[in-house]
C-alpha cells in the first residue's frame, strides 16, 4: 500500500512516465513480425479512410509525374516525327531529281537554295554553287519538273538565280503538241501569260509549254508550264493564253544548274554574258 501510495500519489507523473517508457520499450523489443502484424492489424482497421486519402494523393502525384513524362515524350516524338516527315519529303524530292537527272541528256550541277529574296517584285534565290563549281552567268536553272530561272550573278561559292516570276523576264516557249511559239510573261504568283498567240494558232487547254531554245541561251525542251485557259481577246486579233508554271516557284529547295549537254554548247555565249549585268532572257 505504501508503495502504491508512493507511486500513484506522490510521484504520479514519474510513474506514468515510467509506464509509458516501459510500454514503448516492450513494443520496440517485441518480435518484429508480431509488431508489424499487430500494428498493421490496428492501423488497417483504424486508418482505412486515411490510407485511401493517402493513396489518392500518391496516385495523383504519380499521375502528375507520368503525365509530365508523357508530355515530354509526346513533344520529343512530335519533333522526331516532323524531322522524319521532312526527311521523307526530301528523299522523295531527291529521288525525283535523281530520276530526272538520269533521264536527261543535259549535264547538271545539283544545288540547294540557301536564301530567298524578300522583294515582292524581284523574285530570286541564292544557291550554294558558284565560280568554284564552274557556274557562269546566264546558265539555266531547273527543277525536276522544268525551268525555274537562270543565273544572274556568280560569287565564289554561291550564285543568285533570277526566277521566272519576274516582270523583267520573258521566255520564248513552244507548245509541245502544236509547236506554236509565244513569249511567256509573268502575271502573279505561279500564273503566266503566253503572248503573241493569234486567233488561228492551235493552242489548247492542257497543252505543255517547253523552252524553244531560240537564241541558244536557254536549252531547248525544258517544260515551263501548262496552259489552263485560252480566252478570246476583245481585239479579236489574238487570244489570251493563261499558263501555270510547272514548278511551284515559292517552294524551291533543290535545283539543278544546266552546264551543258549533247547538241547544246553555249560556252561562248556564257563567256560574253559574263561581261553583261542582269541580262534579259
Amino acid at each position: 500500500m505504501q508503495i502504491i501510495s508512493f507511486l500513484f500519489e506522490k510521484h504520479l507523473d514519474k510513474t506514468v512516465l515510467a509506464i509509458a517508457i516501459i510500454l514503448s520499450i516492450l513494443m520496440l523489443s517485441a518480435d518484429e513480425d508480431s509488431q508489424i502484424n499487430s500494428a498493421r492489424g490496428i492501423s488497417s482497421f483504424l486508418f482505412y479512410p486515411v490510407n485511401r486519402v493517402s493513396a489518392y494523393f500518391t496516385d495523383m502525384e504519380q499521375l502528375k509525374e507520368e503525365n509530365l513524362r508523357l508530355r515530354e515524350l509526346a513533344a520529343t516524338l512530335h519533333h522526331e516525327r516532323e524531322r522524319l516527315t521532312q526527311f521523307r519529303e526530301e528523299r522523295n524530292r531527291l529521288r525525283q531529281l535523281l530520276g530526272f537527272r538520269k533521264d536527261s541528256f543535259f549535264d547538271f550541277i545539283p544545288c540547294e537554295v540557301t536564301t530567298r529574296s524578300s522583294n515582292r517584285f524581284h523574285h530570286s534565290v541564292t544557291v550554294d554553287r558558284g565560280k568554284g563549281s564552274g557556274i557562269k552567268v546566264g546558265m539555266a536553272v531547273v527543277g525536276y519538273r522544268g525551268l525555274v530561272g537562270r543565273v544572274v550573278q556568280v560569287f565564289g561559292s554561291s550564285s543568285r538565280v533570277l526566277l521566272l516570276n519576274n516582270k523583267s523576264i520573258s521566255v520564248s516557249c513552244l507548245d509541245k503538241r502544236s509547236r506554236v511559239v509565244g513569249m511567256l510573261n509573268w502575271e502573279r504568283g505561279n500564273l503566266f501569260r503566253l503572248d503573241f498567240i493569234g486567233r488561228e494558232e492551235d493552242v489548247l487547254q492542257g497543252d505543255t509549254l517547253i523552252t524553244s531554245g531560240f537564241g541558244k541561251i536557254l536549252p531547248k525542251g525544258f517544260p515551263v508550264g501548262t496552259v489552263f485557259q485560252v480566252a478570246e481577246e476583245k481585239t479579236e486579233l489574238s487570244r489570251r493564253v493563261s499558263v501555270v508554271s510547272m514548278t511551284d516557284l515559292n517552294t524551291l529547295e533543290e535545283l539543278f544548274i544546266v552546264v551543258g549537254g549533247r547538241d547544246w554548247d553555249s560556252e561562248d555565249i556564257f563567256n560574253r554574258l559574263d561581261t553583261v549585268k542582269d541580262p534579259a532572257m
Partner: protein
Amino acid sequence: MSVIRAIVAAFAVFILQVTIVHRMSVLGARPDLMLVLLVVLVLDRNPVMAIIIGFSLGFLQDLGNASFLGMNALAKSLIGYGIARYASGYLPESTFFKSLLILLASLVSSIIVLNIMSTFNPLTVLVSFFRHSILSAIYSALAGVVVFLILKLFPRRVVRSVGRY
C-alpha cells in the same frame, strides 16, 4: 469536450502528416506536425496528461510506420513530460519562444529516434542529426509559427479547450 476536440485535432494532423507533408519536403526535410500538435496540446497541462497525450500521438504516428513500433511513443512521451514539467509556466507568451520550444523538442525527438534506429551508434546518430534533423527541426519550428498565428485568429475559449496558444 476538450478531449474529443484534441482527438479530432490529432487525427486531422495525422492525416495531414501522412498525406500532404511528404509533398512539402525541402532538401529531404519534412516538418513533424504531430510534434507541433504535441507542443500546442501539452502547454499549460499537468505532466501526467502531457505524457498520455505524448504517448497517444507517438503511438498514432508509429501505427503509420510499423518498423519501430513504440519509437515515437517513447520520444513524444518524454518530450510531453519535459514540456509540461519544465517549460509550462516559465515560457513567455510569445510565438517566437513557442517556436523555439518546438525547435528544441524536435531536436530532442530526433536524438531519441536516431539512437533507437541506429541502436545507439554515435557516429550514425551524429551524421544523421546534422544531415537531416536540424533542417527538419527548423522546418517544424516554422510550421509551428504558422500554427500559432492561425490559432491566434480563433476565439480564446475555443483554443483553450484544445490547448494553450
